[in-house]
């Protein structure tokens, strides 16, 4: 009795291991894999469900992460159909590998804004007021898109900031300000809008000079991928994106 029981247990373990390792893709219908910058989470979730409604049987799988992580994944062979990046440079990395099936086109813009604690206790009203050494400012590190935008903005506005910390993500900048650890931070308008319950936004006059462009491109050729990119870059896409604070390049 013992031996069969043991081998059953062993094969059960083996089966568990094997099924655990296999990826579980949805069986029925077509799946469209959309890789999008983390900042696009809200508008792309809306657009994806609209797309599913108008294309019965199609399921849109959204993969949100930092643009450069996504680019690395796509270059490593991840099955992306559409890629929407938070900056043209990252899109270029994918394009340089010859992995784009369509030219990239800009579908949205984003600008930086100052975020401060609720009620703006220090009365911060401009980029200049952040240069005061008594104000502790948190920026994104120059290596990440929001940080390089902050550098461009400082140059354009001829202001030099001494950050107390250079975070690797927008979330961390907002977190440091909303928790009161820092007095102010620079993030995108859309991030400030998403966090409006915990921080206040102060617009920057020079913001347009460090405008961030969001390109989208088809990675694996296909009608669905092209249609989805068209939806995002079209009239409807613009409406949804602007509701979340994104700008329109044609403005």
């Amino acid at each position, binding site marked *: 009795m013992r031996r069969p029981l043991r081998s059953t247990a062993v094969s059960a373990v083996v089966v568990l291991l094997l099924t655990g390792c296999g990826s579980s893709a949805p069986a029925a219908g077509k799946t469209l894999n959309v890789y999008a910058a983390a900042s696009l989470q809200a508008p792309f979730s809306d657009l994806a469900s609209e797309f599913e409604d108008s294309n019965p049987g199609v399921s849109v799988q959204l993969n949100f992460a930092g643009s450069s992580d996504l680019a690395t994944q796509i270059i490593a062979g991840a099955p992306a159909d559409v890629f929407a990046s938070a900056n043209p440079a990252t899109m270029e990395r994918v394009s340089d590998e010859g992995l784009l099936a369509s030219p990239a086109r800009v579908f949205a813009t984003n600008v930086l804004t100052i975020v401060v604690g609720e009620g703006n206790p220090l009365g911060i009203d401009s980029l200049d007021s952040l240069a005061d050494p008594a104000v502790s400012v948190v920026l994104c590190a120059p290596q990440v898109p929001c940080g390089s935008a902050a550098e461009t903005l400082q140059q354009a506005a001829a202001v030099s900031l001494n950050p107390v910390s250079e975070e690797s993500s927008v979330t961390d900048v907002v*977190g440091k300000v909303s*928790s*009161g650890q820092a007095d102010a931070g620079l993030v995108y308008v859309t991030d400030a809008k998403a966090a409006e319950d915990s921080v206040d936004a102060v617009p920057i006059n020079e913001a347009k000079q460090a405008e961030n462009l969001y390109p989208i491109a088809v990675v694996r050729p296909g009608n669905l991928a092209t249609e989805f990119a068209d939806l995002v870059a079209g009239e409807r896409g613009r409406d949804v994106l602007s509701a979340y604070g994104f700008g329109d390049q044609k403005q």
Partner: protein
Amino acid sequence: MNAAYSGVPRWLIAVAAAGALFLVLPLAAIVLRVEWLRFGELITSDSSTAALLLSLQTSATSTVLCVLLGVPLAFALARTRFWGQRVLRALVLLPLVLPPVVGGIALLYTFGRQGLLGESLRILGVDIAFSTTAVVLAQTFVALPFLVLSLEGALRTAGTRYETVAATLGARPTTVLLRVSLPLVGPGIVAGAVLSFARALGEFGATLTFAGSLQGVTRTLPLEIYLQRETDADAAVALSLVLVAVAVIVVALAHRIQEGDAREP
């Protein structure tokens, strides 16, 4: 080595080999991915050396704090009995299983500017926000349980025979502690300290959440690796290998100490 009977069935060896492979293969993958031609240049850049030095310095400070706080804590847990001891032990070991980012949030609401102690610290003129002190606090928080756990184990294994004898010979508790107990578990303390050092060195989540990230001040090696990954994957891999090398040295050291401990009569 006894060749006649190894004491384990053969299939167990096969599974053990799979387990070992699972742990070793990713490390081999890092070594294979290293861009050796640029390795020296990548790990000696300003930002890399600043991060490595900061990591070594903060981890060493955290280890000292762990020994100062952890040794008494381990003694209290192993050698005394008090109400709520079991609950306290569970709570003390909690940072072992908590995701580090949770530790960071907890520290933020304790020592942060608007935290539990923030106001009192501000009155004292102490502001640890975005300072190296914040890094040390984060590292100590996650590393302390390692020292307590390993020393408490050593204390229980050692027993209280010698202490009892010393006490009956008229030694006062402090004398017994300093002259008998501490020398007896010395290797246990060192091994625990080495483990704490290793844990502090690898600390990432709590530091990122609580201390921030600025070159030379709060950006330790793991944070530097995380940031480099954004733009220079080769640099991130090279620095990862440095961290792996340091970790290997530390683990080997701890192992030697424990083996030496076991060989003692």
